[in-house]
């Protein structure tokens, strides 16, 4: 099937690109492929939303019935010690971390709303159809994508229900898969888009939604914490956003550049909830949702070139998240706005897609990412030095220091040998405040059709046992937030088991596996989590 523009991914950047394209020229044929069973079902985000890009997309959005309702009314920042907490005055926070103009939203619901707008403008949205392969023209330019075959069994044979994938050809193809898109990753390599850039940096973000007691709920309150349970050398922190209907969005982000292979991000998050300052908020409440997703932390230094012949990368498929702001939705949407303008001029006036770069450099998005660039690398010196440096960089110099710090290592290179690092003894879940992975994954509604090929591919199937187990105590058992990977011992032989049906599509394994031995590919359409208002 042929379109003017084929968009891969129905998140904030892809939907914004589609809507803007139709606003610029309603005659353009635009389609969006989405791997989830419906728009929003694979979206997971904090989310404190800055409306800057939305203001540009729909200047009248306040008159439309958007799911953006809860204005931020109060902010807190806590440093946590093991049992104590220290409140940091918000006026001493850099302006990028002040949220009083922002809203607490569910990004999944915003995407559902954006999808309605896109469809009413004539965009064709196909949920349940993952793009699994990039198609190229003879001259090497991107021609489009092919969707995944459906109805293939574990051994790769066609079942009776087999339905072949479809080729979608676009004058321009936009890749908007989000962080660590599996096609975006291939494009970055093929077109050398990250040449001269620092290695990309990632984090893993957890989120739970809790319904809490009325007396503990303060709609509009935004709270962040740093410190316990992480040590000084591990980058991370929490968020607690009081949304409407007595719900709070509670989450934790940990930089995937952590060094100790025994660290379990999931268990750090669970343990975090037992801190007295947190416990008192959620005590008596009920956890109703759980999810996790990798996110971009590299920022400006790691941002690849976003255009190539026939295609663009937008949002976090490239990596437009603003780390010190802990926000990527408005920047993803802005990259979509710029992409739509560049594509429209490309199709209408035959301007080269490199036009995107000029527009990007002239935009507030570039300015924002530039000023934010030194914060994350400074935390490689530890939490305390990082905070001191960030104060100088963000408050005194407003991001304009005359140098740029570098990201030195990719996240898969940072693990130290298991022998050198201390084991971590995590407390057992109490099933009231803290939970195990199995009951957590249950809340995500994750399912993959039975009898399909494993979508987590091992380059060397023996490596997990022959090398990674000995060297790093196979950290996949711990970094995976869904319990996909297990080392089972049977008759004194270790076996690496992949429970791919549990995969919640967070992509952490693809990022953190020390030998880059695991590749995440698309499973059969519609598989994965079914998040509600994440």
């Amino acid at each position: 099937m042929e379109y003017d523009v084929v968009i891969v991914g129905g998140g904030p950047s892809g939907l914004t690109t589609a809507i803007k394209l139709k606003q610029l020229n309603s005659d353009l044929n635009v389609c969006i492929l989405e791997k989830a069973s419906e728009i929003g079902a694979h979206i997971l985000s904090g989310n404190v939303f800055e409306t800057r890009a939305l203001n540009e997309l729909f200047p009248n959005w306040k008159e439309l019935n958007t799911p953006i309702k809860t204005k931020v009314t109060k902010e807190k920042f806590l440093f946590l010690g093991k049992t104590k907490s220290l409140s940091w005055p918000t006026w001493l926070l850099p302006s990028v971390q002040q949220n009083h103009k922002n809203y607490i939203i569910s990004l999944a619901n915003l995407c559902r709303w954006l999808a309605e707008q896109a469809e009413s403008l004539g965009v064709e949205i196909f949920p349940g159809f993952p793009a699994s392969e990039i198609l190229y023209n003879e001259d090497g330019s991107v021609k489009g994508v092919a969707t995944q075959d459906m109805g293939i069994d574990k051994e790769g044979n066609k079942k009776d229900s087999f339905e072949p994938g479809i080729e979608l050809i676009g004058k321009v193809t936009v890749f908007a898969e989000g962080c660590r898109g599996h096609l975006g990753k291939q494009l970055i390599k093929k077109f050398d888009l990250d040449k001269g850039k620092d290695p990309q940096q990632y984090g893993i973000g957890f989120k739970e939604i809790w319904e809490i007691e009325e007396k503990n709920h303060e709609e509009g309150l935004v709270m962040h914490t740093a410190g316990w349970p992480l040590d000084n050398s591990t980058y991370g922190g929490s968020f607690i956003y009081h949304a409407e209907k007595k719900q709070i969005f509670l989450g934790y982000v940990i930089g995937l550049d952590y060094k100790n292979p025994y660290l379990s991000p999931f268990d750090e998050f669970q343990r975090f909830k037992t801190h007295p300052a947190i416990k008192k908020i959620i005590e008596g409440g009920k956890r109703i949702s759980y999810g996790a997703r990798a996110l971009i932390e590299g920022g400006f230094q790691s941002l690849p070139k976003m255009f190539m012949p026939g295609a663009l990368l937008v949002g976090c498929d490239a990596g437009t998240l603003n780390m010190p702001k802990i926000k990527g939705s408005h920047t993803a949407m802005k990259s979509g706005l710029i992409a739509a303008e560049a594509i429209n001029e490309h199709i209408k006036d035959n301007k080269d897609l490199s036009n995107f770069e000029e527009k990007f450099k002239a935009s507030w998005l570039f300015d924002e990412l530039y000023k934010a660039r030194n914060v994350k690398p400074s935390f490689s010196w530890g939490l305390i030095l990082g905070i001191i440096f960030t104060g100088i960089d963000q408050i005194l110099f407003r991001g304009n220091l005359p140098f740029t710090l570098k990201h030195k290592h990719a996240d898969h290179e940072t693990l130290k040998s298991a022998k050198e690092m201390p084991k971590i003894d995590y407390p057992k879940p109490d099933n009231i405040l803290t939970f195990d992975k199995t009951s957590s994954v249950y809340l995500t509604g994750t399912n993959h059709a039975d009898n399909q090929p494993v979508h987590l591919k091992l380059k060397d199937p023996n490596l997990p046992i022959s090398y990674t187990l000995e060297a790093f105590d196979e950290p996949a058992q711990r970094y995976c937030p869904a319990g996909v990977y297990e080392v089972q011992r049977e008759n004194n032989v270790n076996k690496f088991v992949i429970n791919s049906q549990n995969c919640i599509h967070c992509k952490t394994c693809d990022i953190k596996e020390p030998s880059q031995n695991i590749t995440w590919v698309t499973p059969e359409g519609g598989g994965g989590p079914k998040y509600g208002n994440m």
Partner: protein
Amino acid sequence: MKILVAVKRVIDYNVQIRVKEDNSGIVTDNVKMSTNPPDDNAIEEAVKIKEAGKASEVVAVSVGEEKAQETLRKALAVGADRGILVKVDGAIEPLAVSKILQKIVEKEKPDLVFMGKQAIDDDCNQTGQMLAALLNWPQATFASKIQVKEKSLEVTREIDEGLETIEVSVPAIVTCDLRLNEPRYASLPNIMKAKKKPVEQINASDLGVDTKPRIEQIKVEEPPKRKAGIKVASVEELVQKLKNEAKVI
């Protein structure tokens, strides 16, 4: 032969159901909805019969709110020819659905009515049977195999004791079991085509059917949480506990 297939929009079977805090019902906001799984089997079977040249038209009908259109579009994407949406707001019980379907049958004059054996949301397993009574048609419930004959159907039924094969004359109602077939995937080109297929919208009130609930729902509760298990040291201890604590033997 013309086949009418009733499809229902329900909460997706993968979603963990959550009870509202005031016990007045279950949470449906922002929850993924899908076609009731055995209704997918009903559509699949009707489409297969049409593909075998034994039916001329497959009409999908759904009773529910505006968004049930999505369920009809899914049926159209896997091969139904057109759709009918009977719009009702709020809860609707099987009796009212059967009365609505009776009106649709009188209007459409199908030879067969297919539907899932029961819906996974209320688990009622009543609509097909009540519709058969209202129309005074034969019924074949829990069908796991259907053979179309000259003026009858040979239907294999999944019953407690095993399988039962019966023959029903046409016109007839068939309610479908999950074992009946493997529903096909909707392909992209067929989803596109389905967008252009006609869907007629009717208000339930225009059919003259009283859809008022006959059942008063008092409260909805989550099943009690299972207690953690214990380990016993010996068979004797197990027997003793089963006798004295669990009181099951």
